[in-house]
């Protein structure tokens, strides 16, 4: 009896010692805590910044409708933009933004896909060695440089070619085309490289030509990726301010043709932001333009997600 009790006691103290040893903090556990703390802090700050930006832009953007009592429909469909006189029809800018975005994407996509096919299927070595760095360089050139080239080269060229001032949607399209081309190309290259090699081999082994293989098998299975690339390009074009502002002419009127001065949401924002007083209708109206831009970029993001999901489903069965 005595004996057993003693043993139990001994076990107890042993187990307590072990418990202490296994629970006490070491350098390793402290590092874990610190690491986790830092990443939570970073995430928290980012969430805070994003949330407050969303709240700020939204609250400022809807002030036009809540405080100045402009009807939403009038804002979206009105064609007269004279904020100082209380007229804020944003349609010209909306049309301008969409026009340059779609035009740039439509022109750039064939070039981008063609370049990407060359880089992946026709001459992968040259593609990797020469074209890849060139494209990466093009992505990195600041937009003001593109705008400056547009102003110095494209605008005079258009003036010479079709007359008028040379400022307008077509010049903006041209500048945006050069700007979105590398984005679309490099993402298309990634999606073409991701096409499994066995698809290509299967097609070639059936006696299909290289062209048939590229057009019917490779491009088709890369389609979700290519669409994503185009949308990213469009998002970039839609949000580009400086380069567009330098070549589009900045006239807040409905664009009648491609060669007369027009404006986009972004160009109107950058042009007008210095001339307005906080809290007045002209200032609130600009915030409403910013809100449209924000909603559009959310829309582009959502679209990319939808396409990615669809593409995945198709591959998995």
């Amino acid at each position: 009896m005595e004996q057993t009790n003693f043993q139990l006691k001994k076990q107890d103290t042993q187990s307590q010692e072990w418990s202490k040893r296994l629970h006490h903090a070491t350098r390793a556990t402290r590092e874990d805590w610190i690491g986790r703390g830092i990443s939570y802090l970073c995430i928290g700050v980012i969430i805070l910044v994003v949330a407050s930006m969303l709240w700020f832009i939204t609250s400022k953007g809807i002030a036009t409708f809540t405080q100045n009592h402009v009807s939403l429909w009038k804002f979206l469909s009105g064609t007269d933009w004279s904020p100082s006189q209380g007229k804020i029809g944003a349609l010209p800018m909306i049309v301008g933004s969409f026009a340059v975005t779609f035009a740039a994407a439509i022109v750039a996509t064939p070039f981008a896909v063609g370049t990407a096919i060359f880089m992946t299927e026709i001459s992968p070595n040259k593609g990797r060695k020469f074209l890849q760095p060139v494209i990466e360089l093009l992505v990195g050139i600041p937009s003001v440089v593109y705008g400056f080239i547009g102003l110095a080269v494209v605008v005079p060229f258009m003036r010479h070619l079709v007359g008028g001032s040379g400022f307008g949607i077509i010049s903006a399209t041209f500048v945006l085309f050069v700007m979105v081309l590398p984005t679309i190309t490099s993402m298309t290259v990634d999606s073409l490289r991701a096409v499994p090699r066995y698809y290509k081999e299967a097609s070639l082994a059936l006696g299909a030509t290289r062209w048939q293989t590229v057009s019917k098998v490779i491009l088709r299975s890369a389609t979700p990726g290519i669409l994503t690339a185009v949308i990213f390009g469009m998002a970039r074009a839609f949000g580009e301010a400086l380069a567009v502002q330098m070549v589009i002419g900045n006239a807040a009127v409905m664009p009648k043709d491609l060669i007369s001065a027009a404006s986009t949401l972004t160009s109107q924002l950058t042009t007008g932001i210095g001339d307005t007083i906080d809290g007045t209708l002209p200032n609130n109206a600009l915030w409403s333009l910013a809100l449209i831009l924000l909603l559009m970029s959310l829309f582009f993001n959502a679209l990319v997600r939808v396409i990615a999901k669809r593409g995945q489903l198709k591959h998995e069965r």
Partner: protein
Amino acid sequence: MLKQYSFDKTAVQTFDAQTSLALKTEDLQVFYGTNHAMHDANLAFPKNQITALIGASGSGKSTYLRSLNRMNDTIATVTGKIWYHGVDINEPNVNIYEIRRHIGMVFQRPNPFAKSIRENITYALRANGVKNKTELTERIEKSLRGAALWDEVKDSLDKSALSLSGGQQQRLCIARSIAMAPDVLLLDEPCSALDPISTVKVEETLLELQKQYTIIIVTHNMQQAARISSQCAFFHLGHVMEYTPTGTMFSNPQIPVTQDYISGSFG
């Protein structure tokens, strides 16, 4: 420690003039850059028979097979002659697309396109200019029957090919190849990704198909080679060591290296 075997001692059969051959290689060599992957392969393949190519991984059997329909063109240098209907199809000016229409290939991993079952078969036919609807329909049925897949998929031809099981996918790949009505069918370990039941189905299909096609199959599975092939070639480190009728190879191998390989005391 891998045993060393002499590459000089080989036992490679030849065929007399009476045997009609589908395909024959003369001194075929393959180089991946400076890596000499295949040495002087002299093999002839009798018509309407199944020939199995066996050997360990890296022995060059797949490399050899892929050379036969010029699938190695962009990745390796292939020298020597490949005789097909009296033409050396290893010449650079031969139309490789035409070759692949006559010498079909099925790969190790079932690789149907992410299209419907029907489109998987019509893809190649359309690429070759078959546009007539009735002809397409006929050839879809004929090739699926040939690959013993018709009864399983006839009601779901518009379903995605990726919804089929692995064995069905592989038979679809076979159907896709025979839809082109080739002479020769090359199969690169077609059953290695399949379960035993699917394997049996594919093997039965191949035994049926040899009546119309000459079949050359690479396999890791010696039982499979014994079950289905008439001729058998054993590859070792880029050399063809022995090429004999399958019965002879498995009952009475001619040289030590083959004997060791098939009895499992290799290396």
